[in-house]
Structures are given as C-alpha cells and as structure tokens.
C-alpha cells in the first residue's frame, strides 16, 4: 500500500515535471526561424495582412497594442501577425503582454534564431532592426513598411487601403 502510494506520487510528480516545460512552450507564440516569412506569405496567399514587429522592451510598441486590438475588433477581416524580435527564451515575458492587450489570438510569433540579422533580412533587406516596424500588405502582397509608432489615422487609412 505504502509502496504503491509512493509509486503513484512519484509517477504523478514525474508526469507534472515532464509536462511543465511542454506547457511553457505551448502556444500561440510560434517560433520564427529562417523561412518563416515565406511561410507567412504562403499562408496568407491572396489575403491582405498586417505584420507588426515589436519587442518586450519597446515602450512605443506596447503603447500601440490597445489600438491594434481595438481596430482588429472593428475590422475583423484584417489578418494581424505580431512578431516579437526577442529571443524565444523570452516567450514567458512576451505572452502576458499579448494577453493583457487581448492580442493573444492574433497570429503570434517570436524570433527563434540567435542570428537575428538573418531573420530581419529575410523579412526586409532594407530594415536595420528598429522597432516598432509595421508592414501593411495588400492581397497581392504589395507592401509598405513603417518604422516607429503609427498614428490611429495612418493605421485606419492603411488598413482600408490594403483591404480594398
């Protein structure tokens, strides 16, 4: 009896400890690696989308999140991709920020290659890495990239442009 209790406790705890890291990695926050940008273009073929690139330490990025969330509700046709340029090891810090801004159900990604310069180049060979960086792509994937915070007016106008 005692033995089976110990064994049961052991198995339970062991399964928890195995399950725990899996849970931490679960998600909503997909790993952005070499080839991921092309993957996104394929996924949203013939569809307009917004790619908002942000970082957990970027105040200007986080300040714009409530607005993005609000516009998304009023324009449900918009596909919003949020990409954090922090290392995948910072996933646990990025997730609460997205959840807190009701952006956890956007298409969320995080950089997962130590050579972040390569990842940036695959998105845009002209981008130096400043954030926030927002790309607006129409259904033919003609795009406009903007560095820095984007005002409500610009956001609304750009969203209308890419939908039409």
């Amino acid at each position, binding site marked *: 009896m005692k033995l089976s209790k110990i064994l049961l406790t052991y198995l339970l705890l062991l399964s928890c400890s195995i399950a725990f890291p899996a849970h931490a990695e679960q998600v909503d926050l997909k790993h952005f690696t070499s080839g991921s940008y092309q993957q996104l273009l394929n996924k949203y073929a013939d569809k307009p989308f917004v790619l908002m690139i942000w970082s957990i330490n970027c105040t200007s990025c986080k300040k714009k999140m409530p607005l993005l969330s609000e516009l998304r509700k009023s324009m449900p046709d918009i596909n919003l991709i949020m990409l954090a340029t922090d290392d995948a090891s910072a996933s646990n810090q990025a997730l609460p920020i997205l959840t807190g801004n009701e952006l956890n159900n956007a298409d969320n990604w995080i950089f997962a290659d*130590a050579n972040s310069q390569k990842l940036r180049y695959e998105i845009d060979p002209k981008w130096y890495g400043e*954030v926030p960086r927002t790309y607006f792509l129409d259904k033919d994937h003609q795009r406009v990239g903007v560095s*820095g*915070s984007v005002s409500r007016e610009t956001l609304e106008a750009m969203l209308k442009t890419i939908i039409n």
Partner: protein
Amino acid sequence: MNHFALLCSTLLLLALSYNLVAKTERLLPEQKIYTATTFGPDGRLWRILSAQKSISIDYSTDFGKSFSQPVRVNSTDMPIHAWDENPPTLAVDRTGRVYVLYFADDKQSSTSFFSHSDNGTQFSAPVKISSEANTWYHYQTEMLIDTANRVHFIWHDVRDRAEYKKQGDGDLSIYHVSARTGKIINLPTDQRIAKNICSCCRTAMAEDVDGSLVILARYVYPGNIRDHGLLKLSPDGKTSEPWRVTFDDWEIEGCPAHGPALSIGANGRYHMVWFTQGEKRSGIFYAWSDDQGKTLSSPTQVGDQDKLPGRADVLALDKQVALAWKVFDGTQTRVEAMYSTDGGLHWSKPQVVAETATQSAHPALITDGKQIFLSWNSMDTGFRLIPIRQSDDDSNQ
C-alpha cells in the same frame, strides 16, 4: 522496500532537478558571444568570458593566439544577462588592476554588477552599481578608468519614469557614479547627469585631454527627433548642460537600438561615429571636432548603403584613426574597416577584415598604445583579434 522508496525519491529528485536546470538555462539566450577585451600596461591582452551563470577573465601574451587558464569573477552563480547593445566591460589600469562590469538578473532584470582585482587572480564580491538597483530597471552601463585613477560608471535608468510620463515614452535618464580606485572601492550615491535619453541606444564615453569625461548619447529632442548630444563632466564633478551635435532629424517614436561611438585623440581631437535614418542623412556617419565638440567637421558617410552598414566603432591613436563596422548581405556578416593616418582627414578604402555566417557581437576597436586592433566574437570562429592597419594599396592616398 526501503530501497525501492529511496530509488523512487532519487529518481524523482533527479527528474525535478533536471527540469529546473533545463528551465533556468532556457531563460536567457546564449551568453558566450558577449565578450570584452583590453590591453594591460604590460602588453597583456585581457578578455571577459561570459557563460550562462558566470563571468571569467583570461589573458593572452601572444595577441590572442592562446589564452591563460580563466579566473572566475563571480564566485556564486548568477544568471548572466547581456545583449548586443548591453555588453560587459573590462578595464585594466596603469598599475595592472583589473575592473569588470557585467550584467545579471537580480531583483531587477540585467542589473549592473562590478568586481575588481589587484592582479586578475582573485576578484572582489560583486557590487551593484546603481544606488536604486533593487527598485529600478537600469542597463547599458559603461565603465571608464580615468587618468586620475577614478573609476566612472554611467548607465540608462528608468527611475524618473513619472517625470517623463507627461513628455511621452521612450525617455529615460543617464546616472553617473565614480570612486577612487584602490584595494577597496566604495561607491557613493549616484547622480543624474542627463535627461531625455533614447532608452535603447548605448551611450559612449571618453576622457578628454583635460581630464574631463565626455559623453555622447542619442537624445530624444522635441518631436521625437532621435539625434545626438554631447555632455561634459569636469574633474571637479561639475556637469555641463548637454548640447546637440548631430542634426539628421531622425523622427521615430520607437527603438533604433543603435548607439554612437566616441574616441578622443592625444591631440584633443574628438572622433565620433553614429547611425541615423534621418530626413537629412541616412546611414553611418563620421565627424571630428577640434574645439571640444562645439563644432563638428562635415559628416562623412561610411559603408555601403546597400549592405545595411551599422554598429560602427571608432578609435584614435594620436593621428592614426580606425573605423570598423558591420555589413550583411543576407548570408555573411562582415566587419569592414578603414584607416586614416592624418587624424581623420583622409581615409583608406574600406576593407573586409573578418566575416561569419553565424551570430556575432558588435565589432570593437582596442589598442595597446602602438597599433589598433579589431576585437570580435562570432559563434563559428570564436574570438578574433585582428590588426587594423593601412594596406599597401592605400599608402598613396
């Protein structure tokens, strides 16, 4: 039965500790890329070795070909936490004392710690630099030992957040503390020396020939213009008002994460290099000043615009001046460099001095007082020390 219970408990502990270790190690990106080097008075090349939980130093007597047995700086494990724009710093003074500045997660993420040693064989216990290190997030700390044997630290600190709230985000302050070096170093309370600093760009610091400390930082000017300003700390501790020195008009409410570099030659000429994507200028630019930064030479563009040039460093050794920066072609990261023998008036053609297809740190220029070297770390090749000198092709330029 007892044996079986013991076995179960042992297995359980092993399983748990394995997961704890795995979890902790996953918390931060690989730290070994972040290094720093400097030459000592005897010509030895000292180097910081970063690991996930420790900082060590070693030295080389053959210009980086081989290194001594490493000596650990922090005796107790700490979660070391540096990044590209927040690397550790190493200094060796004229008597051979070694000073190490590094970052580890503590009560605040990436807290600045300082340890020192009389000869590099044993280090003092880590001390937190900021007087409010436990309460306020601070980072991008720089360290300098001046000719009057004082150790200076400057860093970006968010503690004035409430004050900046009205002005908009992205702003923080630079704080400074200094102390006389010696066997025991006591840091007094720190002081704010600059306001409205762009939060994510490293600040540069150099000692002027008159013994004052010169600071070059990316400021946030009205309208979210992120250009550069200079600031002076005189030997008597007085702080000057800052003045703007770059006028590129880079308007961005965001994080450029790209700080400037500054070097002051023995002749008193300031050499500056910075990155901008302004209305008036875009790319890396170099300028010098012969009147302590009051006026600058016309900025010269550095690097090929099509190759994302960035992360430039500058170093002046009397009339010899070197510039080094990174370029990227989609696959290879290269460090390019150019050289001047007349104090920055004329320059050699840029040359590729090192390359990698993997992650790499920012390039840094160092000197042993005789020549200038590139100090660079990449994941594939590891540490490299490469002399930057005028090539034969350029001797007639």
